[in-house]
């Protein structure tokens, strides 16, 4: 029995050291970090584990206990740190690695000429058709349009999935979309992509350096879109350009562009984008600060005090609006405060009264789930608005659309 254990222990030690040697040799010989990671995984994982297994043959309870602890620890951390390094190697900026970061469509930017570059997401649905129609009518004359269709592969997205993959259904949809745009006399290019729709659209927008991304929305509420996944919500949080969301019942009004502000940086960026859009479209402009009277427990039962507080709030709102208008150089007659039960619906009601062309709001870039829980201003506006809504994601530089 004793001899057998000794032999087993020696074998395990030998095997572990062999694995470590082979792995180390591999790391030393291989040129690329991804190949090296594979070999290094052999040293940090299996080699250490096998040698720790040899502890079973030492007949010492202390050693076996400690070794078991370390075994579990290595089992968990070795893959994690390997993955962290691989991820960093894949995502890191800089030209010193030759690994491909993203599928690229060379020359895509040059396909879109001078003027306003609009990217329209198209999936053949009714809301997508409406979005495309609107984009072609409103933004087509000001520049050019790219139509993107994203095929969402079932199951694992394949990394090799190139934009060149032929898909008859995709071709049919894109041909239909191109024909629809051609009727308005606007040049259009088409993009074929595969993968997660929101991620692909964000990437396509960045590649084209699009000034605006246009998507249709199925008009789901906050909770439904958090659960089911909403492309428009994901875009509004992460795109590199403003996102125009066309709801199921949204119509492009004859009135001005309404920009909602609340004094935050996000809303200032949104107002700048709205101004830039107004320069393109020349529809008139209205800077709106929607606010609510803070409910204060106890005070609200005394009518006088309530009125006084409301006045204080109104004054504050006016000051905030005046400050922003001064900063952006907007004349006073184009600004307005509005008060209602809730801020988003006040903005939406005002937009309806003005027959607004567009509503422009900023987004904090919350994820879908957090937005549903915390309440997202942009999401509520999206759900209720009667005209298309431009959501300005937090990472859009203020100078976009210039």
């Amino acid at each position: 029995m004793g001899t057998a254990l000794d032999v087993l222990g020696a074998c395990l030690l030998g095997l572990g050291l062999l694995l470590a040697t082979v792995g180390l040799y591999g790391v030393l010989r291989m040129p690329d970090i991804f190949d090296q990671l594979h070999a290094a995984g052999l040293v940090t994982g299996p080699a250490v584990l096998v040698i720790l297994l040899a502890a079973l043959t030492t007949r010492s309870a202390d050693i076996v206990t400690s070794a078991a602890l370390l075994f579990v620890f290595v089992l968990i951390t070795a893959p994690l740190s390997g993955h962290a390094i691989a991820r960093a190697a894949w995502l890191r900026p800089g030209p010193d690695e030759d690994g491909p970061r993203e599928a690229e469509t060379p020359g895509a930017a040059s396909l879109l000429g001078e003027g306003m570059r609009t990217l329209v997401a198209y999936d053949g649905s009714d809301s997508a058709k409406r979005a495309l129609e609107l984009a072609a009518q409103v933004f087509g004359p000001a520049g050019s349009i790219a139509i993107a269709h994203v095929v969402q592969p079932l199951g694992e997205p394949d990394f090799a999935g190139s934009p060149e993959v032929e898909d008859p259904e995709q071709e049919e949809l894109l041909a239909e979309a191109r024909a629809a745009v051609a009727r308005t006399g606007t040049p259009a290019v088409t993009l074929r992509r595969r993968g997660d729709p929101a991620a692909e659209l964000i990437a396509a927008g960045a590649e084209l350096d699009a000034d605006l991304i246009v998507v249709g929305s199925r008009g789901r509420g906050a909770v439904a879109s958090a659960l089911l996944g909403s492309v428009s919500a994901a875009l509004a949080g992460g795109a590199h350009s403003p996102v125009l969301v066309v709801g199921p019942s949204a119509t492009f009004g004859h009135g001005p562009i309404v920009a909602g502000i609340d004094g935050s940086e996000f809303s200032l960026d949104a107002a700048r984008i709205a101004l830039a859009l107004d320069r393109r479209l020349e529809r008139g402009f209205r800077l709106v600060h929607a606010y609510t009277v803070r409910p204060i427990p106890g005070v609200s039962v005394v009518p006088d005090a309530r009125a006084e507080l409301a006045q204080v709030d109104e004054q504050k709102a006016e000051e905030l609006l005046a400050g922003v208008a001064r900063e952006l150089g907007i004349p006073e007659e184009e600004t307005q405060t509005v008060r209602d039960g809730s801020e988003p619906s006040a903005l939406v009601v005002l937009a309806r009264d003005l027959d607004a062309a567009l509503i422009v709001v900023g987004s904090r870039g919350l994820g879908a789930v957090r937005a549903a829980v915390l309440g997202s201003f942009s999401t509520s506006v999206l759900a209720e608005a009667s005209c298309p809504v431009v959501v300005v994601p937090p990472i859009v530089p203020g100078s976009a659309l210039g």
Partner: protein
Amino acid sequence: MPELVVDIAAGWATVLLFGGGLLLLRAPDTLHRVLALDVLVAILIVLLTTLSYLRDVSYYIDGALALGLLSFVSTLVAVRHVLRGRPS
């Protein structure tokens, strides 16, 4: 286990340590250095474990556990640094 076997194992692990050092010296950039340190720590854990078998005490393995924990955390932080520019 026969002492001779464990002696040889500890000796060989020391040799591997030199290989790991060579890897660290040859690393061209931060990520390669992080990887090299990861491998070095793994070899050190092997060495400490064999030492523990040799001396028949468990403390070396406890030390190896602490070292592994430190290595894991610093790998994650260093990777973050590579991605974000500075640890924050």
